[in-house]
């Protein structure tokens, strides 16, 4: 009985440390995402060569608003890869898939062995999707990243 209790206490102790370490890693990725998004928003690219605005799907209008859940971040990554990452021009360099913004977003989406593909497919059939400018899209994304980051912060005593 004593051995079982000791083993249980040890497991709880170790798992506590593991969770703390995982949370710290999540926070690091989120904080870096905040830095990269803020850097891009200071001087957002507004036009392509054809002087057209860049529009992305308004992910916040799906369902009941901007929920900042895992599927939102997955869809945000997919939208950016599809509509921004491949655009030519130096101003779109921060959105390339080999740059830190997209790499961090991908890392966040795949932490804890999560997978995006299933969640994206569930929205593939949506029609009549509303669109927003890249600038607004990025601000929504930043809002969500900050929201999640504040949820993972320790509460003040």
């Amino acid at each position: 009985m004593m051995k079982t209790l000791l083993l249980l206490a040890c497991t709880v102790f170790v798992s506590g440390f593991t969770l703390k370490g995982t949370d710290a890693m999540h926070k690091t990725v989120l904080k870096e995402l905040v830095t990269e998004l803020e850097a891009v928003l200071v001087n957002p690219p507004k036009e392509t060569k054809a002087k057209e605005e860049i529009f992305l799907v308004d992910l916040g209008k799906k369902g009941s608003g901007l929920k900042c859940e895992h599927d939102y971040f997955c869809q945000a990554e997919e939208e950016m890869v599809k509509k921004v990452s491949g655009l030519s021009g130096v101003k779109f360099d921060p959105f390339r898939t080999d740059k830190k913004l997209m790499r961090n977003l991908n890392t966040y989406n795949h932490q804890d062995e999560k997978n995006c593909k299933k969640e994206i497919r569930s929205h593939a059939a949506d029609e009549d999707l509303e669109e927003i400018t890249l600038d607004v899209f990025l601000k929504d994304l930043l809002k969500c990243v900050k929201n999640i980051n504040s949820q993972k912060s320790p509460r003040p005593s």
Partner: protein
Amino acid sequence: MSSSLFLYQIILTLVCQALCDDPIKDFNCFNDYEAEMTCSFSSESLRNCSGYNMNVTQKLAYEINRYSCVFEGSHHNAICECKIEVEGFITEEIFSTTLLKGTKVLLQRDFKTIDYIKPKTPVLFVKKTENGNFHVTWVDSYEQRNVFTDNLFITLTYRIKGEIETNSTKVANTVGFCDIVGSLLQPKTEYILTAKMSSNYNGQKIYSDQSAAVHFTTGL
């Protein structure tokens, strides 16, 4: 007889070169979380680093980057070193390394970025103030201020020149300075100050190389 012995020695040397590889020790790769990853190893009977090279694969979200480099001797004895330039680091990304001698694979190892951050070596400055204290400042040598640099810590260590006993203090990089109180030091004495940096990203478990020493002398 002597020619036979000589022949046996040649054969033995050739066989040993093929089969009796000295074990590679301490193969490790550290990154500065800015643009550089440095790998190194030592070997007991390492005479030079020629022939040793390394292939590195970095699996990004949507592509794979491949690097290679040739080892060279560092200023330390019996250590071979190799550096690659990387376009920015992400905490969870993994670098898969293959150490080769010629075309022979000696070992393969994965390095997760966050676990092998070794910050850049700081540069120290010290200035005596009017009240007899010593105002220490430093440069962390990183080009940009960001979350990473905000999570660096500097460990300042000072001792009397010629003595072994040291005093250390750890300061957050964001503070930017540390004042050593002159009245707590021995008068008319020369001190030596050095520093190392560590990162909160990996629980400060890996320190940078030690900075160049700066000297300061106390008054009466």
